[in-house]
């Protein structure tokens, strides 16, 4: 990780985003930028097409458990040319947790966004196939939200019968 290249990229991002860039946090090796939700898709496109972040490594969410802007979704981007890792994050409100999908930019976002949906209930607008990925479709809860109990909701889902194809 070259510090001068990192600074150069950061400067480009600052110029481009202006007031939409809220926070730059680079205490632990990699810069973490918080941006406005409205410019998320444009910024991702900017990162991919102009800053050469062609590799989307991961998309994940966290539950901040506050009354407003409850969730945050973090995009982990890698530039193979500049050897840099950047993290972009946006806050998502609990009332209507919807974000635009980035699967049109990076195919690899597909499963990661499904995982975020499965675990936190954040929906992605324009995702080609937004299904649950780990849990069955019949499951009504989002287990990584903080209010979901560690031992699960009793009786939340019936176990499969031991003879599935028997009527």
């Amino acid at each position: 990780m070259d510090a001068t290249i990192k600074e150069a990229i950061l400067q480009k991002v600052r110029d481009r985003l202006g007031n939409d860039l809220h926070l730059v946090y680079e205490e632990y090796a990699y810069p973490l930028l918080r941006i406005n939700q409205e410019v998320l898709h444009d910024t991702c496109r900017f990162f991919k097409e102009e800053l050469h972040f062609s590799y989307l490594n991961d998309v994940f969410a966290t539950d901040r458990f506050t009354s407003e802007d409850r969730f945050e979704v973090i995009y982990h981007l890698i530039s193979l040319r500049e050897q840099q890792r950047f993290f972009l994050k946006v806050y998502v409100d609990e009332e209507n947790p919807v974000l635009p999908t980035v699967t049109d930019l990076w195919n690899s976002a597909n499963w990661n966004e499904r995982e975020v949906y499965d675990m936190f209930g954040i929906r992605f607008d324009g995702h080609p196939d937004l299904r649950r990925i780990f849990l069955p479709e019949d499951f009504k809860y989002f287990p990584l939200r903080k209010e979901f109990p560690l031992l699960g909701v009793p009786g939340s889902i019936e176990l499969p019968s031991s003879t599935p194809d028997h009527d």
Partner: protein
Amino acid sequence: MDPITSKKRPTFFPEHQEAIYKSLEDKHATVEVDQSDPLSTRMTLNMGPQHPATHGVLRVLMELDGEAITKCRLDTGYLHRGIEKMAENKTYQEFMPYTDRMDYLSPYSNNVALCLAVERIANIESPEKANYIRMICNELARISSHLLWLGTMVMDAGAVSFFIWTFREREKIYDIFDEVAGHRFTVSHSRIGGVNNDLTPVAVEKIKKFVREFPDELKGWHKLLDRNRIFVDRNADVGAIGHEEAIAAGLTGPALRATGIAYDIRKFDPYLHYDQIDFEVPTRTEGDNLARYYCRMEEMSESIRIIEQCFKKMPTKGPIRVDDAKKSYPSKDEVYYSMEGLIHDFMMTDTGVCPPAGAEAYHAIEAPKGELGFYIQSDGTGHPWRLKINSPSFSNLQGLETILDGEMVADTVVIIGGMDPVMGDSDK
């Protein structure tokens, strides 16, 4: 007669079944369903979840046209244990044995990955000797994981005795881990701020013996497989993917390097002391199953080189764990013979390290299957507020969905074997 709907549908998790079948139909909207199909060559095939070649509980749904796969869907989650949720309710050190159960074919890498992430967020510097021990064991874990891949992949291609030979070598690595950590399989040897115990002279001798003898074994396998007509025909041009597609699909590890992209975190962003070691990152350009085979085989001999250099550079004496009771466990000698040691041991187990509130950090290592990263958010307590695991098998399996389209159904088994997924790693 409608071929899909007339069959008896499974009755468990009905909505899940409906959704996955629907998505299989939706995937390529342009594919027209062939109504004039008198021989009914079009069918939907369910492979798994318990197929012996799926290397765990992976279910593959394929829509076939004769023997070719027109589109496929992977259904994961059969091994989902909610590891991230458990992490939020454990201290960092308590969570470490759980990581053994993720990629259970190379537990040592997972331990080290977690410890490094925690050390980064809590500002702990583990001593040099511990780092070299971690590197040696990490490379042994890589060889061990690749050996299992080699055995099962060649077995999927039809050769059974090979599986026994790779397992004989794996058995030696188990013996080494037994000597190093006291466990053969789920080692849990790494600690936050170092490792649990030093390498014993017997362990050093065993590792050195393995390092001496293994290259000959590897040479023999190269001789057997490289020009083997059946093996090459089974693997060349099978499951091929280009480098652009591979990046787009988010492949990682040897599967990505087999397409020509030298993305190896040991070089990309060196951790431990990998920047002081001389080694190469094997790449291929074909991106098919044979290329993945060559990449992994060469990686094994590079691992041997790394271990040899580690032994040369490792200090003979020195601490193997940070000597700070607020950051790491005290040694068992202190615990048994001093009151402070006992208290510190209790405090570490009960509360553990407390990274600063509001801090967030990410650390990744090059695990045998690819990038294994831990992202931690702290709220200032001994439990992580959020711990996200970025696991290589998950990324690789997603790429598998792209790779399988257009392949032959008989090759599915070899391609899954060549990607080397571990479901414990993917489902988390």
